């Protein structure tokens, strides 16, 4: 390890929480998806750091599975973005409150 694991984990946590803040604070659906991307990358960095710390390759394999998961998530959620923009004409999350959650 070139740096202590705690520094890698702190960096990953900072990245994760920036993405979380983006998801919670922004109201544009595209920006929410970008926040999800940032969060997933923070988690991936934690996996790779742990993989280097324990000298095991499993963490890296998990990151690759995470990438496949992300591409599936992005493809389907961008298709929903296209659907909402065409049918409803806006992408502000506050306008979709039919369920009164």
């Amino acid at each position, binding site marked *: *390890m*070139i*740096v202590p694991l705690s*520094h*890698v984990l702190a*960096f990953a946590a*900072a*990245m994760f929480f*920036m*993405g979380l*803040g*983006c998801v919670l604070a*922004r109201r*544009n659906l*595209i*920006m929410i*998806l*970008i*926040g999800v*991307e*940032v969060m997933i*990358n923070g988690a*991936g*960095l934690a996996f*790779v*750091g742990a*993989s*280097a710390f324990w*000298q095991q*390759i*499993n963490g*890296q*394999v998990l*990151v*690759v*599975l995470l*990438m*496949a*998961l*992300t*591409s*599936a*998530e*992005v*493809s*389907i959620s*961008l*298709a*929903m*973005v*296209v*659907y909402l*923009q065409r*049918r409803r004409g806006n*992408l502000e999350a506050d306008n979709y409150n039919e369920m009164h959650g």
Partner: protein
Amino acid sequence: MATVLFYILASTALVATLLCVTRRNPVHAVVYLVNAFFALALLFYMLGAPLVAAWEVIIYAGAIMVLFLFIIMMLHLAPVEARPAPNWRRWGPVLLLSFVLVSSSVLLMSVDTAAHGGVGSFYASPRQFGYTLFKEYALAVEIVSFQLLFAAVGAYFVGREDWGEGRKGGRK
């Protein structure tokens, strides 16, 4: 040297992410996010994961971000602005981040970090990686491939043009 480079790249990624999540224009956010992913790929390489680093660039920065840009352009989501003159307040951060990233990669390529005792002892070669992925995690690979197939079918279903119009008595 590798330790210093690690902290430089980590702060680059953090600054790029911070700039990304605070942008109003989604195109600018995507450009900053590509910078952050590039820095993350270099970090992955330094942590002994060269194959994951390559895929980070190819899949995240290459495919997914281009998909985002494609959707933003297709739906005209970015605010229309006049052709911007070279404006250092706008171009400065991204040029600085890219400069840091390019010089870090050149440094990583030119200096043999292993000779300086900088790189950790752990290094997962692509051969080892593929062996683990397809031997121990074969079931996971199958499940993920099914998931990708379902996602493709679902995206096609959600994105089709004739929603509800082709069906008689269907829900509108």
